[in-house]
């Protein structure tokens, strides 16, 4: 009796799996921790309406597997440990993803639209001979997606005709999934030969900062050419620390060497959508607006009343930043909610 009902259940499960082959999310991780955009990718995967499998590949994956298996909505975690995955080079990861795809026939493969996802997903897509969809901001249904083109100045809705859909998703448009207490089951990813003798990871030079990470911060303060020097950015850091904000920059400030390029917000830098974005000494070129115009509240401080940034700012202050930024830092304690 028990056996036969179990057999039936298995059969149902089997049919279920056959009809809905599910979505594979490629987990991004660094130094044994899940990178937050992975949780946004899981949210996007859930919207596709079928089972969600997460693939964790690396040199030592156990801590990442236990972390990501707690994400709500994840049905299964595949793990693959191999020295060849050092630095997560796409030349090594691609054969693993192709092997997983062969075994499980996913309908969708999803990753966050970070430097990692953008580097990897198109390589996998070409191997599968499909056209990937980059930086998706909305999912209408399993084959219809929304994305921006022309630096965020146009919104394109498209239908993907390929059998397998490969997507990178914009982290700021999909809230991170919740983390539960119980973990999804994990298993070893399909075995495949990973031999990469064409690319070699040497090292990373990461900018160290105590401040929140730019793309996930609730508040962001950004500086532009108006700051005049790298030293003057400390005015922004002082204000940012009181607000627990991340600090960003325009391309002009990066090109002038005021700050490192990983702080750049814009079409070619990071895309942010915090609750509060304060643009200081930034004119507001199209390319910068592409990276921040979905922020909830935008404040602009600029001495030029004609600066385009004022056209998107909710609150604008026409003033010399060197006077008003220190004044804000001094007065903010009286206003800030504890």
């Amino acid at each position, binding site marked *: 009796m028990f056996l036969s009902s179990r057999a039936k259940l298995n059969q149902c499960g089997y049919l279920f799996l056959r009809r809905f082959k599910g979505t594979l999310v490629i987990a991004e991780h*660094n130094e044994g921790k899940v990178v937050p955009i992975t949780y946004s990718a899981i949210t996007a995967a859930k919207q596709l309406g079928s089972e969600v499998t997460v693939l964790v590949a690396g040199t030592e994956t156990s801590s990442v597997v236990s972390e990501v298996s707690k994400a709500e909505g994840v049905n299964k975690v595949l793990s693959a440990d191999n020295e060849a995955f050092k*630095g997560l*080079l*796409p030349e090594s990861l691609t054969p693993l993803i192709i092997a997983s795809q062969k075994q499980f026939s996913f309908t969708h493969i999803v990753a966050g639209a970070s*430097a*990692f996802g*953008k*580097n*990897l*997903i*198109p*390589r*996998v*897509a*070409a*191997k599968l001979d*499909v*056209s*990937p969809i980059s930086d998706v901001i909305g999912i209408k249904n399993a084959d219809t997606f929304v994305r921006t*083109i*022309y*630096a965020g*100045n*146009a*919104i394109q*809705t*498209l239908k*993907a*005709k*390929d059998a397998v859909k490969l997507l990178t998703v914009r982290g700021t448009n999909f809230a991170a999934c919740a983390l539960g207490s119980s973990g999804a089951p994990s298993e070893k990813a399909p075995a495949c030969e990973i031999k990469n003798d*064409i*690319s*070699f990871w*040497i090292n990373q*030079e990461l*900018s160290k900062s105590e401040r929140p990470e730019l793309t996930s911060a609730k508040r962001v303060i950004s500086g532009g050419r108006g700051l005049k020097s790298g030293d003057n950015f400390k005015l922004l850091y002082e204000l940012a620390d009181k*607000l627990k904000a991340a600090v960003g920059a325009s*391309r002009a400030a*990066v090109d002038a060497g005021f700050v490192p*390029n*990983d702080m750049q917000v814009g*079409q*070619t830098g990071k895309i942010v959508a915090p609750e*509060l974005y304060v643009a200081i000494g930034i004119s507001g070129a*199209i*390319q910068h607006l592409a990276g921040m*115009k979905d922020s909830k*509240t*935008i*404040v602009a401080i600029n001495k030029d009343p004609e600066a385009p940034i004022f*056209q998107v700012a*909710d*609150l*604008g*202050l026409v003033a010399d930043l060197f006077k008003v930024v220190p004044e*804000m830092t001094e*007065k903010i304690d*009286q*206003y800030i*909610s504890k």
Partner: protein
Amino acid sequence: MSMRILVGCKRVIDYAVRIRIKPDKTGVVTEGVKHSLNPFDEIAVEEAVRMKEKKLCSEIIAVSCGPTTCQETLRTALAMGADKGIHIEVDGKDYETLQPLHVSKILAALAQQEKVDLIILGKQAIDDDANQTAQMTAAILDWPQATFASKIEKENGNLKVTREVDGGLENISVKLPAVVSADLRLNEPRYATLPNIMKAKKKPITVKKPSDLGVDVSSRIEVISVEDPPTREAGTKVESVDELLEKLKALGRI
């Protein structure tokens, strides 16, 4: 060893133009709008020319896929120092749905035909913002990829590439042949001088069709609509720091 380099040159609406959406929402108005070489491709061409100046490269081949007007874009690359151009003619409907996957197959076929050692492309085109072509070309050829490059050095026959990643920089080494995609900070592209523009007119441009390379350009996506993004409500100007902070507090932002 002296390399043969292939560079990709996409003709796009100039970066400074404020684009307009067609009233029927099928796309963006391109007729009568200023076009130029995609800024990231300009950087790719500049890098190839610098490699040639350092005697690391023997020939630079510039490629563009699209309508006849792409030949102007190729002339820009030739004026910057590329040696010859290849125009892959794609028109009309096929051009509207031409995607990175198609361009990658074309570039891969050309790379083999022309026996190149290195392909340098821009990291993304500023119109479709896809950021895919370099990665896909590398995949089709089974070559290594070094994307978002901000520094390229030749080291023991390999290329050592500094990549711009989320937290900072990453250094990798790739074996040749390889595909590299250029980030903004790789270099400062030169302006073509008038004598070089004149010389570029004499450089050869070969015209081919995707079918000559055995590439099928049938569309893999259907564009349902192209629309304006939501516009933001006009904001207000405040007079003082106190007023600004009061309003932010009232909004619950601080």
